[in-house]
């Protein structure tokens, strides 16, 4: 392997409003290597990549490309150097062909018109060179997500990119599509294209990467060569000894002796996003669901609650089978706080009062068909007091509030009800620390009142801090239960990554 360094970021510092996010970070990529970048949520991976690609400016440090220091202030600068970024949200245009996508914005011309022949010929040549399973004339709208990603990669290669940055490229791919992508990545390596590979999935990193840089709390934790990439060691490096033993990162799990409230048996959908999942939740228990993104936790919860369909299996609440529609589940005592707050959580144009009331018109007083404005408003004001929404203006449109307050409104409409089970999916994503603590307090309070709280979260610290018992899902199945003894972030991450004793 060539040892020449193609990209080097030296002594990078960056802070956001006084909070240091990157401190003295060093990162280098050699020519023709697949270099993985790992770290927990908030370790600084995406900030580092955004600095390298010119999206953010750095506070201090320097970036070197092929031995020369460079100043990048936009993605266009970076593209000129020969770096292409394959984002999670693909930027290909479905109505166009592969060739049209590859040459979008810089089509070859002949007499001022687009030279389609040349465009197709050049694209075919590229496809052949790298052995992609594509045709230049394929319509992108007919391609699956995996092939669309290849179009995106092809677009990068057509600009003579020497370095490709891939951010969680397999997050939305099927197993087969991922396999095909790995093959392509290996071919690219043979052609001396360098790749920065960002992933949470240890097995992929182990399989593909020549080296691995681990970030932890905005600092370099380690650079490991391929033969040093040992899963357990990587996890320990990511989480860090001091963090793992500090308060909030390890907690004694317990089994709740109360009666079973929710009993799920053999739950499966028809495309294997969750398979034969069985679990029980007891009265007053906070049951945490851990696992990597894409493990099937969200899909499972949506199906139990009844927004999505499942194929087989049963879910019973106090011995009565659910009817698997949102309306009937709410009547039975369910509440559901969805993962995607902005798109699924609240009605942005409506006020706090009306958002809170939305699930509660069965309990708000009414005379005939006419609901009592006063009772509706009183409920909104009660919710504002109970969950501390600020500012406490009950008429403010929820769309104009901060993320933390929006989430409190979403919670508010459920806690006005006589709940038996509350499912919360990523309840604190993008929320400030103060509001987080308040949300945890609300969840703990509900559990004390006997409500079953099901917590799905990718934030390991949150999972361990809030849960009484933890189930870990992987590839659609529950593979590990922590119901006694001390559990640490490493243990959850190891289970989610498939390292089981």
């Amino acid at each position: 392997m060539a040892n020449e360094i193609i990209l080097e970021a030296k002594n990078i510092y960056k802070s956001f409003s006084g909070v240091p996010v990157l401190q003295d970070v060093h990162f280098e990529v050699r020519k023709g290597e697949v270099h993985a970048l790992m770290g927990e949520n908030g370790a600084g991976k995406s900030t580092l990549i955004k600095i390298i690609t010119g999206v953010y400016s750095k506070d201090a440090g320097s970036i070197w490309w092929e031995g020369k220091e460079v100043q990048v202030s936009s993605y266009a600068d970076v593209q000129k150097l020969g770096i292409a970024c394959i984002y999670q949200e693909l930027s290909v245009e479905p109505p166009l062909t592969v060739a049209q996508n590859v040459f979008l914005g810089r089509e070859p011309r002949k007499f001022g018109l687009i030279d389609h022949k040349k465009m197709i010929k050049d694209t075919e040549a590229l496809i052949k060179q790298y052995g992609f399973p594509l045709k230049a004339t394929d319509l992108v709208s007919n391609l699956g997500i995996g092939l669309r990603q290849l179009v995106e990669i092809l677009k990068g290669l057509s600009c003579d990119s020497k370095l490709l940055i891939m951010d969680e490229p397999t997050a939305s791919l099927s197993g087969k599509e991922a396999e095909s992508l790995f093959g392509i990545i290996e071919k690219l390596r043979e052609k001396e294209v360098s790749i920065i590979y960002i992933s949470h999935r240890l097995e992929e990193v182990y399989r593909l990467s020549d080296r691995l840089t681990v970030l932890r709390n905005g600092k370099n934790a380690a650079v490991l060569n391929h033969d040093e990439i040992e899963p357990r060691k990587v996890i320990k490096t990511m989480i860090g000894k001091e963090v793992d033993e500090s308060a909030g990162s390890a907690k004694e799990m317990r089994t709740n002796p109360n009666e079973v409230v929710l009993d799920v048996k053999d739950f499966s959908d028809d495309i294997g996003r969750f398979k034969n999942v069985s679990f029980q939740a007891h009265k007053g228990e906070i049951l945490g669901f851990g696992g990597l993104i894409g493990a099937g936790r969200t899909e499972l919860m949506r199906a139990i609650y009844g927004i999505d369909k499942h194929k087989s299996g049963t879910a019973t609440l106090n011995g009565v089978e659910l009817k698997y529609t949102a309306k009937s589940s709410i009547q039975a005592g369910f509440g559901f706080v969805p993962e995607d707050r902005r798109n699924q959580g609240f009605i942005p144009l409506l006020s706090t009062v009306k958002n809170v009331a939305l699930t509660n018109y069965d309990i708000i007083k009414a005379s005939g068909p006419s609901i009592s404005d006063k009772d509706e408003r009183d409920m909104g004001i009660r919710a504002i007091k109970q969950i501390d929404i600020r500012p406490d203006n009950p008429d403010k449109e929820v769309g104009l509030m901060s993320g933390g307050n929006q989430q409190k409104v979403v919670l508010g409409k459920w806690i006005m009800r006589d709940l038996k089970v509350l499912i919360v999916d990523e309840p604190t994503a993008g929320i400030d620390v103060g509001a987080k603590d308040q949300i945890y307090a609300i969840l703990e309070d509900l559990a004390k009142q006997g409500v079953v709280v099901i917590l799905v979260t990718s934030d390991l610290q949150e999972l361990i801090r809030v849960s009484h018992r933890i189930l870990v899902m992987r590839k659609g199945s529950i593979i590990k239960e922590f119901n006694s003894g001390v559990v640490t972030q490493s243990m959850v991450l190891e289970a989610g990554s498939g390292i089981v004793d």
Partner: protein
Amino acid sequence: MKKLTLNQLSKPIILVAFFLILTILRPSSFLSASNLGNVLWSVSVYGIMVSGTIFVFLLGGIDLSIGSLCGLTAVTCVMTIRHFNYSTTGVLLGILLTLGVGLLAGLVHGVIITTFKVPAFLVTFATQIIFLGLSMIFTNNKILSCQNPPAFTMIGKNPVPIILMIIAAAISWFVLRKTATGRYVYAVGGNPQAAAISGISVTKITIMAYMISGFTTAIGGIVLASMTQQCMASTGSGYEQFVIMAGVIGGISLLGGEGTVPGAIFGAVIIGLLQNGLNLMSVPSTQHGLVRGIVIIAAVGFDALQRDPAFQGWLAKRKQARAKNA
């Protein structure tokens, strides 16, 4: 006490401005009771229609078919009355049948839109053509007159249409403002996914909205047929323009989730005043369309400007500056 914003005050201001301008320009003819009665009379058909179609607008949907459905329902009503020899029984049956046709049309729209996920624009664009086609077949493209019985002709005489408009608007206002169903309409229009998670059936609400739109359109058809004492295939054609215009001028967001019945009725009255003003000032009717179009653009532009954060910032700055000077 809530502070009134520019947005809330703009409607009364515009209404007063219209009155003042027309009073000054045509003092004797405009302010007469008969003229004002005529304005409301001419507004009543699309006032009735927009009272129902507002449900569709609030969902972010659109119903382009209401103009030709108005025609089809007028034809249904008149043909039934004629079939029963202009008897009062015929009138009763005709009204019932016509309302049924309106509800059925709405049901078809709602079911197609929710089952096949076809955009409302396309579905109602197609049914607009179909309804007109059906009217053509039924009338054989001829004018069918219907000047009897009084039970029918009285529907179109003042003040009956105005009273019907007020009743339709009041019921619509009550449902949207006072009932849980009304709240659900705003919720589905504002964020259908969040509404579904909150246990609201988006399908049911959508079908209901198109049925209400069909129902008020049928009432509009009956009133229009009675006013003109005749009907033909082209009766009501272009009325969808007036209804959409009333909604837009009245501050209804065609993206859904925003708008009120009083706003929509305000929009309808403004259209009536505009039309009346143009007539009183002897502007040839060939030029009316041009004026109407410009008014729509002005209304939409004014609305967009008020929502623009840059414009609001500019207003706030001016306010501060003025406070400093004072």
